[in-house]
């Protein structure tokens, strides 16, 4: 029988409950029955293969191990101490001896910086909260975009390959999941590339008006009855 065919409970750690011949030889204190049984149940739930016979054997073995523990207790054998983190002498905290230290900041320094701060205070008026620009300014973007445009063919091919890989199965991917974790600039670049790809007919784009999510589908889209695609 290959290992893949073996039921899970014949693998460690559960196998200990199913190797009846070895049971009597083990030290019962080394077996955490609660852990074995609860993970056994979880594993069975996970695989969806409920095997009452295996459950019975597990229960029987557990009972046997409990019995062994009880017998040892009755003969007054001390259970071993639970495993501890290594014992070592931890000295008391070493308190740093404090030193008084005069500092050089004077009221003049305070006044100097106050002047700067108050100049800055004029900029953001409290009455009208200045709207933060959502996108970086054009001048910020342009130099980078130049380089970006020069490599656009290569970038398009790269993105197309990525899309092919990502849409496996459904054939559709949301823009938001495509740019997950990307910076704003990366997102903008990706979107521009998508527009180029759409123009070449390699992909189709449409937007859900309610959620504003943009969907990307591979190739020319032909969704019968979907009005948004035709427009």
């Amino acid at each position, binding site marked *: 029988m290959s290992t893949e065919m073996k039921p899970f409970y014949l693998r460690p750690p559960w196998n200990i409950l199913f190797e009846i011949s070895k049971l009597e030889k083990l030290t019962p204190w080394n077996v955490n029955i609660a852990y074995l049984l609860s993970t056994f149940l979880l594993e069975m739930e996970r695989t969806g293969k409920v095997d009452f016979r295996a459950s019975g054997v597990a229960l029987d073995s557990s009972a046997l191990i409990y019995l062994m523990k009880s017998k040892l207790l009755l003969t007054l054998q001390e259970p071993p101490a639970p495993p501890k983190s290594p014992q070592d002498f931890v000295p008391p905290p070493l308190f740093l001896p*404090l030193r*008084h*230290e*005069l*500092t*050089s*900041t*004077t*009221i*003049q*320094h*305070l*006044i*100097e*910086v*106050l*002047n*700067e*701060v*108050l*100049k*800055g*205070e*004029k900029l*953001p008026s*409290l*009455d009208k909260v200045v709207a933060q620009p959502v996108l970086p300014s054009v001048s910020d973007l342009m130099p980078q975009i130049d380089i970006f445009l020069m490599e656009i063919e290569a970038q398009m091919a790269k993105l197309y390959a990525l899309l092919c890989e990502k849409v496996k199965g459904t054939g559709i991917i949301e823009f938001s999941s495509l740019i997950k974790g990307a910076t704003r600039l990366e997102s903008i670049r990706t979107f521009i590339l998508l527009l180029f790809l759409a123009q070449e007919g390699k992909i189709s784009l449409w937007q859900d008006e309610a959620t504003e999510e943009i969907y990307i589908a591979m190739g020319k889209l032909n969704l019968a009855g979907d009005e948004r695609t035709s427009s």
Partner: protein
Amino acid sequence: MQETKEQVASSKAEDKSAQESEKTQRCLKLLEAALYVAGRPLSLTELSSVLNTRSQQKTKKYVKTLMQDYSSRSTALEILELKDERYVLQLKAEFTPLVKKLVNKPLLSSGPLKTLAYIAYRQPVTQKRVIQVRGQHAYSHIKLLKEMGLVATERSARSMTLRTTDYFADYFGLSHDVSTMKRELKRIFGETGQDAEPFKDESGAESTKRDI
């Protein structure tokens, strides 16, 4: 060996007085330690808490003894009593010019200092307003300033209000009274020949801004 009653009594008395003296020494050292590390005036309440006693009378007795110790000894340091029964350990003024070249560590780096200056000038000021003017970094500045005891927060129904502490006032030699302190700041600002215009503008605008 048999001891007479008198001997026992006298040795007990000696023990007791030795214990007393040891206790006094320990209290004096604790007060000295407190004044040394604080580097600012401490109230009788603060000093009592270090001695772990509720009796401010006792604390006062000890601190007076320590003051005498310091003044009788040949030292560059002195302990002074300020008004409101606060006490401070400091360098005698005559020595300051001779050693100040060794002092080169600022109280705060410039970012937190700016935030502090702003709070001092606009206090009481909401935390929200401070962040708007000083930016997101100011959250960490405020945390630091609170840890250092320079700034305190008050939480009102809808917002957090910031103000400077008495320690701040003591450090810069300003009044503990907020409005007097603000007048003092303005005066020094004017004297240092800073462009005082923005001040006037801002203080005019202030009353409308402050409470938003």
